[in-house]
């Protein structure tokens, strides 16, 4: 079945999603699952009074069925008690939508999981806050898995409560595999003239303000600058951090540069997503590891 062969119900909820938005207040619980890397991220906002869901809203980044399942579950549980809402399963969501293509069944999992996550957070007294832009970018959790999502949210929460503690953490000094071999062949430890990297895909490793300033400089000669930091926030002077976020630099939070790869010259890097504990390759032309 084609991924777009959706039932009329799915299409209706995709076209006219119910209960889109966010809720605020002491009586609101938030649940969050998914991973932008996999193409979906869901947030459920549930207003709870006397153990009953009196209002519910959602925001979803994802495909048609991800949006439709989010919308449907809000309709299914509005007015229900928390215990009743917890009884709503993935299958219930899919059934209510007259079924989903097999390859899209995980979307119904996501919707149910996001709701259950919100209720669980409410009962455990855990308060999530709406994602900031950089948190959204760092909210890497495994594709469709609530366990990993919880772990990631937990990590995010701890980082937030740790406050400035996280800011003082220094980037890992672990050697990057291949960095020595590719020196002069795409790995730079200093860049005197950014023009040398004109039009290149450049990865700049977080080494503090000097690296951040270089990343900003590079945006004048190339549209593709990726700034990789192991932290979940920018450990930079406030103004510099703000400037970096506003710029065209793509920031990868909670990411560790593991290896530089290529044949004869730098062609790609291996990055570990520290939230998910997964690794992936990114195609780049140059890697800047400043000596600071």
């Amino acid at each position: 079945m084609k991924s777009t062969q959706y039932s009329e119900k799915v299409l209706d909820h995709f076209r006219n999603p119910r209960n889109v938005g966010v809720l605020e207040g002491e009586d609101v619980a938030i649940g969050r699952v998914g991973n932008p890397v996999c193409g979906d991220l869901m947030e459920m906002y549930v207003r709870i009074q006397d153990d009953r869901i009196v209002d519910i809203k959602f925001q979803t980044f994802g495909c048609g069925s991800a949006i439709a399942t989010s919308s449907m579950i809000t309709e299914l549980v509005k007015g229900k008690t928390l215990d009743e809402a917890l009884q709503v399963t993935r299958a219930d969501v899919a059934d209510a939508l007259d079924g989903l293509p097999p390859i899209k069944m995980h979307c119904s999992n996501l919707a149910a999981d996001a709701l259950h996550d919100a209720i669980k957070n409410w009962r455990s007294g855990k308060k999530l806050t709406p994602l900031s832009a950089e948190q959204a970018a760092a909210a890497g959790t495994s594709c469709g898995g609530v366990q990993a999502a919880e772990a990631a949210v937990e990590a995010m929460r701890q980082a937030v409560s740790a406050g400035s503690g996280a800011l003082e953490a220094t980037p890992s000094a672990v050697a990057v595999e291949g960095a020595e071999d590719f020196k002069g062949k795409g790995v730079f430890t200093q860049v005197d003239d950014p023009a040398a990297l004109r039009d290149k895909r450049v990865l700049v490793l977080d080494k503090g303000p000097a690296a951040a300033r270089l990343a900003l400089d590079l945006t004048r000669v190339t549209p593709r600058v990726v700034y990789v930091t192991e932290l979940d926030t920018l450990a930079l002077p406030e103004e510099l951090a703000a400037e970096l976020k506003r710029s065209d630099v793509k920031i990868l939070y909670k990411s560790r540069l593991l290896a530089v790869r290529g044949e004869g010259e730098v062609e790609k890097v291996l990055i570990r997503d520290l939230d998910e504990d997964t690794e992936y390759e990114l195609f780049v032309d140059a890697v800047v590891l400043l000596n600071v």
Partner: protein
Amino acid sequence: MILLWMPARPCGSRVGTMTSSSEPVTYLDYQSARPVDPRVVEAMLPYFTEHFGNPASLHAVGDRATEVLEQSRAEVAAFLGASPEEVIFTSGATEANNLALIGYARRNRRSGSHVVITEVEHISILNLGKFLEQEGFRVTRVPPDRYGRVSPEKLRARLTEETILVSVGWANNEIGTIQPIAAIAEMLVGTGVAFHVDAVAAEGQIPLDMSKVPVDLLSISSNDIYGPQGVGALFVRKGVRLAPVMIGGGQERGLRSGTENLAGIVGMAAAARIASQELPEESARLAALRDKLIGRVLSEIPDSHLNGHPTERLPNNAHFRFEGIEGESLVLSLRDAGIAASTGSACSSKTLEPSHTLISCGLLHEEAHGSLELTFGRFSKEQDVDRLMEVLPGVVERLRRLSPLYRKK
């Protein structure tokens, strides 16, 4: 282009209602499939009923089929700047690619066991690469630059004593980037390494002249020049040796057994004739539509980006990335508005993997998810651009409002 197609009507009208009506479809997905040109259909029709012969037969009806077959071969050869005996008809470009890669690798194994392709090839070549690895060949995949272009120097650096074959697509079927095929071909002259080019995305849009470019093997399909589906051809330069992949009655110089699909071949020849005649004017016309669309999208939709090369791209291809939204929901929304488009998003694929082409250009998975591919063709009109732009900015804005990821800069 106008098709009679009625979008499904929404059942409710609540938050964020989208309009949907019975407007005809604006088709902006020529890369996926093209209609057969009515002139081609007309040329084909007699060969289903009246002139139904088998070229292998010894009687007059068979002779006539042979004549038409060879005439068609000459027309396809002319389209490629080749000699008729260098054209082998197949069931399509996938089969042509199979014959080229498997046929060449097997026939020339004694010379070496290394094959070079690129990271941005069409899936049919990528999977042939995997197949050759299973057959014991070593296959190297050369990465492209951020526009999806592979440099001849980078390719040369991958050649070894063992290399027997290099295969590069003339243009990328997704993002439309045109490869420096002439430069790569020149670089390979005298090395003893054969050069195969999958020209499906490029054919009919840019000139493919085998008398000027020293390519050894070149795959084309009929549908991509508005001919029928189920026909294609492989150009095999004189002197290049292949082992057949299809075994049977020995048709097509023994390289492609099976009775010829005569009506299809006649259609492909007619399509090639029309494409040759109309190419210069048609390319310029499509490039103007493309440039108008690219200009409007980038200026009217915030946080939108062009994928692929700014100038070295197919005249009919515009490929974008929109921050904060996902491609399948974009295509579904356009479908509701009566617009047919494509995406490189994982959520629209069978494997849930994002486009390997976009990843090879250096995009992160989350970036590749938000892509939109728009391809024009022979029946596209300037109004199609206007129609799309009436809808697209609103669709992007609506999906961004739904998305927890999009934050204005």
